[in-house]
């Protein structure tokens, strides 16, 4: 099933490993022919600021974690860091087959070159932003997840943010679910963020049938969580289903 106006803002596949790779090793990988269509690598920097109240001091630190490459039209981004490979497909998202094929076409030569044989974590994450053509909404009409607080009070929920992490019914899978109100880029619209991250915690081979099977399971899980979070009224915002 494919919605005409799927609310997918970003689709992400993330693969982590345990052994740290050097910046030189990472840079060499980005020189492979599979990355020819991407622009020159940019460093990916981590900034840290620590406040130490006891010493009345603030310290700053920055460290390069790896690189980022982007297609010229901005549609795809790859983060290659010491311990992870991340493929980001930005909106518009087309379909699973093309998304996963593109990610794996980059991943497989990357892990071969880096001599990664096993992933410590695999994550499939879809960030959805559901635009609703009303300036104010009752989120209960659009989401099945409800706030069951200690008091009823009056009116509707004006803002909320929620993050839940729990194991799935599917063996070996966990998920992190973020639901939040957010700003819509469209005037006179409200928006709901629905961020679904399905992931593994057990080691899994970096290539082969087991990995492919797990990715398929993760996709099914992600779709099921999405469908179970939204109401029929929300589905109607997606412009119907394409044949």
């Amino acid at each position, binding site marked *: 099933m494919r919605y005409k106006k799927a609310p997918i803002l970003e689709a*992400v596949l993330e693969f982590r490993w345990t052994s740290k790779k050097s910046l030189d090793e990472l840079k060499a990988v980005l020189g492979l022919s599979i990355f020819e269509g991407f622009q020159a690598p940019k460093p990916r920097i981590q900034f*840290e600021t*620590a406040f130490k109240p006891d010493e009345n001091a603030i310290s700053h630190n920055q460290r390069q974690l790896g690189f980022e490459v982007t297609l010229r*039209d*901005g549609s795809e981004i790859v983060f290659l860091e010491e311990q992870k490979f991340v493929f*980001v497909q930005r909106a518009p998202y087309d379909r699973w087959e093309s998304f996963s094929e593109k990610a794996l076409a980059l991943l497989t030569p990357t892990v071969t070159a880096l001599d990664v044989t096993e992933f410590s974590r695999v994550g499939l994450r879809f*960030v959805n932003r559901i635009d609703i053509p009303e300036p104010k909404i009752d989120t209960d009409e659009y989401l099945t997840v409800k706030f069951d607080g200690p008091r009823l009070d009056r009116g509707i929920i004006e803002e909320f943010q929620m993050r839940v992490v729990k194991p799935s019914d599917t063996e070996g899978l966990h998920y992190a679910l973020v639901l939040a109100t957010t700003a819509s*880029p*469209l005037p006179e619209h409200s928006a709901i*963020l629905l961020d679904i991250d399905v992931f593994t915690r057990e080691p899994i081979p970096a290539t082969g049938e087991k990995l492919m099977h797990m990715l398929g399971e993760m996709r099914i899980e992600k779709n099921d969580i999405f469908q179970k979070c939204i109401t029929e009224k929300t589905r109607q915002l997606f412009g119907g289903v394409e044949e």
Partner: protein
Amino acid sequence: MTYVDTGILPRGTLEPGRAYDNINHFFGQLGQVVGASRGEAQDSRSSPDLTPLEKHLRFVQDAISKVSMHLPRGFAVGLNRQFANMMDEDAWEDDDDLVSPDALTAFIDTLRHTRTKRRPGIGTNGRGSVTASWSVGDNRLIIECLPSGKVSMVLSRRLDDGEIERAAFDPTRPERVRDVLAPFNPEVWFDG
């Protein structure tokens, strides 16, 4: 006591391409508030060494990407490619102003409100505007999306008797474009 300001994200508009970072960062901060004896603000961001033009192109592409689901299929990818060509380091005149955010919003609103099925050609006047153009035979339409958030229009339209009529319109709001153009049968430009 540690104070970490969590009031900005994700209430603000999400940046596509960076949602992966932004949401992680927001909830990372929330986690650090609880029981933190030492505050740490941690962030992962891309290169600080992008040129101003590269940064602005990224901003433009993000803005288009995040409304792509409300545009006809293929529009966002095509437009992002067009902007990449227009804002190429070799092609861009150093003296030209970068595309204004309000002009870009007016451009996107124009695409939405006209419900055009044809992707326009794009350009800029070097003073922050985005120029959208449609040309079908002798029928030409240029909409200039201005840094004021309004749009001005110039058109030439071949009538049934072969005469070519020309018209120009002072700046108006993007949502008014289709109505203003109604007497000229704008489907010739917008319905592909």
